[in-house]
């Protein structure tokens, strides 16, 4: 069912991390790649993000981190996604993520981590090839 449908992505920040320059750049790049991107901004809580994923019927949820809260909030997001049966949504994480956190995040259920410095082509191609619905 991957063809003939516009890819819908939600990009958001979670918790108290107040830097969203990177997230906004990613939003622009995905838009330029032909995707429809809902940007939720900063200071969002887990339940708010999950309701947005449900309401918008998103294909992809992208979490952006700078200040090191990825190990705190990501498992909460994963738990709520499971509870809401959102297993057909591709969960990706981006931002300033220490290398040693990557296996931890992947073990939690994140499908792919894109660290700062990733090329836009990498994550665009990854999304296009891996959306699940």
């Amino acid at each position: 069912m991957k063809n003939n449908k516009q890819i819908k992505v939600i990009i958001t920040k979670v918790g108290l991390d107040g830097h969203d320059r990177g997230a906004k750049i990613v939003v622009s790049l995905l838009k330029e790649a032909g995707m429809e991107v809902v940007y939720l901004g900063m200071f969002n809580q887990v339940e708010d993000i999950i309701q947005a994923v449900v309401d918008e019927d998103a294909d992809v949820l992208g979490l952006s981190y700078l200040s090191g809260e990825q190990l705190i909030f990501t498992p909460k997001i994963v738990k709520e996604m499971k509870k809401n049966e959102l297993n057909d949504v591709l969960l990706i994480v981006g931002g300033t993520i220490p290398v040693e956190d990557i296996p931890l995040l992947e073990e939690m259920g994140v499908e792919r981590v894109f660290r700062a410095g990733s090329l836009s082509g990498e994550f665009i191609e990854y999304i296009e090839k891996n959306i699940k619905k």
Partner: protein
Amino acid sequence: MTENNIDEMVQKILDGDRRMLARAITLVENSRKGHRNIMKQVYPHTGKAMIVGVTGAGGAGKSTLTDILIGKFRKMGKTVGVVLVDPSSPFTGGAMLGDRIRMKKHARDKGVYIRSIASRGAMGGLSRATYDIIRIIEAFGVDIVIVETLGTGQDEIDIIHLVHTCLVVFTPGMGDDIQAMKAGILEIADLIIMNKADLEGAEAFIRHLQSAVTTANIPVGAWTPKVLPSVCVSDKPANIKGHDEIIKGIYEHFDFLNKSKALDKIRFQRLELELGLILKDELQNLIFKGLKGTGLKKKYITSIIGGENDPYSVVREILDNYVLHRKK
């Protein structure tokens, strides 16, 4: 998606399953298989909600105003569906849907369903998908549907065919009395909102708009648009004002429509337009499907490029040969 699945999907939507609602909207948005069946089944459950449109130039404060209005309706115990339209890039097809970010207060409220959609070009797709999306949200069972359009300029009147009450949002500094006198505003606005009314120039612009309303040749018995000030954002919460009056205006207009039987007229006009749009789409699909594999479409286009033919003659020929002829 099989027919059985569609039956189940529609039943779940009627039972208030917002996940199924979201999926059905995607399906309709992408004109996937099952679209027609969904609409057929949803249709008997529509027509109950009050539909409010919010339009105006980009940056006028449509989303922030919508956010406040959602809150007011919720306080009245009403459930609300919201459709937010933002523009698609005509070059890449991509879109940044940035209205939902203004509605964080309602992010977790189960009495509010918010959906962001991209305009996807001007080929009629927007109007038809938006019609259908409103219908599905109505069937889901909300009391109010708010439709926020993309930032409009002048002469974008599609919205009046979609809604009962249309709010057009202005801000100070958007023009002088000449702008206020131009066609396009009074024709679509039931309520004219002077947003950011705490900024310099608001009072003068309100007077210009008011005077445009007063001098307009509004037929006897027709609704006279109201000009209402609004402040949505301020350092001091006490300065945020105007919204109870806007809600009151929306209900006054809706009552007016009911009492004056204008609702029936609006319904008729809306269906006339909708029928035309669906007919156009379905006919085009049918004809292109018929031409598939014949190589004729390519031949026609090449002949137009080559200067031997023109689009009008080609369409006439297609109609003569494949539509009118077949009926004989």
